[in-house]
């Protein structure tokens, strides 16, 4: 388990916070702030996922079910409530309740079984939600595959307000999850991740602790989905997509550094940033038309040269990464 040294953490937080706070004032609102809003929502989502994979050792391929549910519940509440503040509050409140119920249900069904089967069950449940969101039966609520456009409360209409709301949400998520993983519960989760059998042998209720982690992660991911929907003022079945959301969040955490918590922020910035770069770039069709191919190559390079992710590798080397320190392919001896 990699622990970010406190000094490095403070420097990173200071730099990131200052840059994020000043960005719209220095560079204005518009395209970049819209991208950053996505980054903040995905960063919170990635941090919630790292709580599972990095701190508890649970691999879920269906984390999009929480993200998507948060996005849809907030979107439907705002669409039905004509963008009223009460519908905003009701939407987020309902999303939290829904996330708790959903995560308890999935945990009850699947957390007692082995990790590989757990991952398969989360994948299946995630797919059920994706199908439901696009189904004709729920079309009056979700608008099926057309997606749902909605208006946000008046006080959120300015670009700047929305930007700072997303940033504030990421800040709150970071503070909460940092405190959570540093708490005695977080310590138990790290123990479970490392040696589940021994944790049981010390009298720790592993299923109960895993369930708690799953609920906390699920609620955070749901809120992140709600914030993402706010930033877009639109939601479609894409928020439940396995490759677009569930696998992307896994990539974000792996690229940033599993078990570092803040690595997810870096991973989200890299992935969302590069995705936006590709989609806005008209030149070099070989790059823009085969986006996933390049992500695949990036993933292979990260796994090969920075197996602990970007931030994880920085931490592992005491805050300094030099080119010489990177692992190389061994030359053949023959």
């Amino acid at each position, binding site marked *: 388990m990699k622990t970010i040294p406190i000094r490095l953490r403070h420097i990173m937080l200071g730099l990131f916070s200052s840059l994020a706070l000043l960005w719209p004032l220095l560079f204005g609102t518009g395209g970049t702030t819209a991208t950053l809003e996505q980054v903040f929502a995905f960063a919170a989502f990635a941090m919630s996922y790292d709580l599972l994979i990095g701190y508890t050792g649970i691999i879920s391929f269906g984390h999009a079910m929480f993200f998507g549910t948060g996005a849809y519940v907030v979107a439907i509440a705002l669409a039905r409530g004509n963008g009223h503040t009460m519908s905003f509050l009701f939407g987020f409140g309902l999303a939290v309740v829904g996330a708790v119920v959903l995560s308890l249900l999935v945990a009850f069904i699947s957390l007692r079984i082995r990790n590989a089967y757990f991952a398969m069950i989360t994948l299946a449940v995630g797919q059920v939600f994706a199908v439901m969101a696009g189904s004709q039966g729920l079309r009056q609520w979700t608008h099926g595959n057309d997606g749902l456009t909605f208006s946000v409360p008046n006080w959120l209409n300015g670009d700047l307000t929305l930007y700072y709301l997303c940033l504030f949400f990421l800040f709150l998520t970071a503070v909460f999850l940092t405190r959570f993983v540093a708490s005695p519960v977080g310590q138990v989760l790290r123990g479970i991740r490392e040696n589940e059998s021994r944790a049981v*042998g*010390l009298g720790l209720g592993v299923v109960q602790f895993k369930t708690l982690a799953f609920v906390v992660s699920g609620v955070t991911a749901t809120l992140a989905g709600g914030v993402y929907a706010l930033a877009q003022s639109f939601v479609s079945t894409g928020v439940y997509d396995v490759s677009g959301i569930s696998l992307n969040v896994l990539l974000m955490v792996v690229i940033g550094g599993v078990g570092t918590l803040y690595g997810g922020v870096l991973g989200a910035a890299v992935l969302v940033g590069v995705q936006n770069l590709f989609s806005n770039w008209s030149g070099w069709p070989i790059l823009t038309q085969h986006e996933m191919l390049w992500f695949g190559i990036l993933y292979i390079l990260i796994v090969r040269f920075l197996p602990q992710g970007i931030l994880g590798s920085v931490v592992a080397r005491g805050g300094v990464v030099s080119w010489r320190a990177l692992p190389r392919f061994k030359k053949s001896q023959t």
Partner: protein
Amino acid sequence: MENLLEVDSLATDIGQFHILTGVSFTVPEQQITVLLGRNGAGKTTTLRTMMGYLPPRSGQVRLRGESLQSVPTWQIVRKGVGYVPEDANIFANLSVAENLSLSLPGRHHRNSSNLALTQVQEQFPDLREHWQKPAGVLSGGQRQMLAIACVLVGGPAVMLIDEPSKGLSPLFVERLGDVLLTLQGSTTILLVEQNFYLASRVGQQYVLMDDGKTVAAGPMHELLAALDLQQRYLGIRILSEEMNIP
């Protein structure tokens, strides 16, 4: 002397193999009972069955008369049965202090936790030097000390310790014996041990196993006098016979 643990006609299968076919013994309170036997006799399987890691085919394990049948492992621990397994008995990536605090039942109460950790530092001075280091950097002997300390801070009614001397140098076996001797009279221990020297040094009671069942039990001094039992079930050869000394 009251019996804290009772194992009654325990039988356990692993897959299609009958590993335990009839294990019965008692563990008296505040004594060290040593479970002895050759490799493959079923000692570790007995401990794992008692802890609920393996479901028994038949038989009973009782703690203060209460059956532990179908009780999940973590609840058996909460009822007061501490377990130090043979391998993988620490969290290598957590610090020594974190390993210990995970085992504290009242870890949310800072004062009681600090008191328990201070006692561990006094009892295991080797660990004090490595307090904030990852447990993975400890030597084999220090790891065993940590594993025992982790269970000890939980305040168990009885400790089940599986071959703590395995792979340790004679010096560490000696130190381990010293630690176990400090627990003699205050803690109830069921110790699985291959090292007969250590077993006879710390044990007050013995249980002898062979081929998945118990074959003898009683006070340790009786086993020390029963050379035929030692030879038949533990493979300890009598030096005088080996060397043809009349």
